[in-house]
């Protein structure tokens, strides 16, 4: 029932989106559009005019390099995680894949894919797991009860549970024991018009972050021209993170 409602809601949104796009994109001069997205100020609420996404070029991503992982851990305060190895918090991880028939190897970072239809949100019994209007999927730790249904539901194994008490709290990314957490696209930076830590830390420039709804953004221009794919696109979660070269 809920799913049927969601689907109809989504298709309605799509129609309204197309209608608004046609109506709103008045051309005032060649190449200048009226509907360009302004930077968000502190008092503005996020809107669904923006859909944050990331394009990861695995052709540039180096095997053995974990700069993005370290930058994330430092920015979000999970660098000094204590406790047993197998339950350590992991917001982003590097995967090395090998095609056995061709021998081609590829290395790629995997984190929360910020799905349009996030399974973690569907299963959350308290509404703590939610999707912001701009497409960023978050855990509201104030209402999370630590049941970990979302961890089970996530096809990307993107979420972690905090098993140990957290000391030295970070100013911008509050963390504590007993709740689930995952990549936030560095929402505290994105709200200040900055890029996530993994993107700025990549020396190879393999990660591109931007607004998928803004046709003038780098990411939109690239996904319009270059081949890219979503992981497990068959699940139709429509992730905001796309990969090239896998």
């Amino acid at each position, binding site marked *: 029932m809920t799913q049927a409602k969601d689907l109809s809601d989504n298709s309605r949104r799509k129609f309204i989106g197309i209608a608004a796009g046609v109506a709103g994109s008045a051309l005032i001069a060649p190449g200048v559009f009226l509907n360009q997205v302004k930077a*968000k100020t*502190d*008092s*503005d*609420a*996020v809107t669904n005019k923006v859909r944050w996404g990331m394009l990861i070029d695995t052709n540039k991503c180096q095997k053995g390099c974990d700069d993005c992982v370290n930058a994330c851990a*430092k*920015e979000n305060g999970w660098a000094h995680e204590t406790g047993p190895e197998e339950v350590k918090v992991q917001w982003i991880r590097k995967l090395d894949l090998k095609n056995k028939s061709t021998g081609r190897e590829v290395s790629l970072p995997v984190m929360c894919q910020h799905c349009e239809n996030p399974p973690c949100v569907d299963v959350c019994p308290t509404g703590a797991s*939610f999707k*912001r*209007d*701009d497409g960023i999927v*978050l855990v*509201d*730790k*104030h209402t999370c009860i630590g049941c970990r249904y979302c961890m089970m539901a996530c096809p990307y194994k993107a979420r972690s549970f905090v098993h140990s008490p*957290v000391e030295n*709290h*970070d*100013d*911008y990314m*509050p*963390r*504590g*024991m007993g709740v689930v957490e995952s990549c936030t696209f*560095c*929402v*505290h*930076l994105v*709200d*200040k018009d*900055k*890029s996530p*830590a993994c993107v*700025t830390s990549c020396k190879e420039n393999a990660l591109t972050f931007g607004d998928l709804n803004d046709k003038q953004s780098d990411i939109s221009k690239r996904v319009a021209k270059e081949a890219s794919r979503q992981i497990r696109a068959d699940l139709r979660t429509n992730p905001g993170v796309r990969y090239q070269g896998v």
Partner: protein
Amino acid sequence: MNPVAFFRSLSMTSKLGVAFAVILLLIMVTPIFAEVPKPHIPTAKGDQCVEETEFMRRNHMDLLKHKRDLTMRNGIRTKKHSLHSCLDCHAVFDKQQKVVSIKDDRHFCNSCHVYASVSIDCFDCHSSTPIAKDKNSGI
């Protein structure tokens, strides 16, 4: 007759009754002698809080909760009514001019919450001190 001799002359039941009455009387008068001192509220930066002091005393938790949801769900990051701003103005410093954390009873939030015996879990996750100026964040 002195009180001790009088007490001895009573029957067992009466003795118990008198003992009970004395204990009851003691319990009733004890708070007069052992009054808990009123909390010492540390002074803050500036002349005026974001709202009237009386209003803040009763409603600070509602303001914080409202702002919490606005920030978490809608990405509204204004400073008014935010926990960061509370900590900025209400930071308490020790004799070495080092800012005290929630582990210290002198912390602004503790000064009342210990007195009222209200435990808060904000600082299980949030930092209880103002944002350090040398904070090494992308912000």
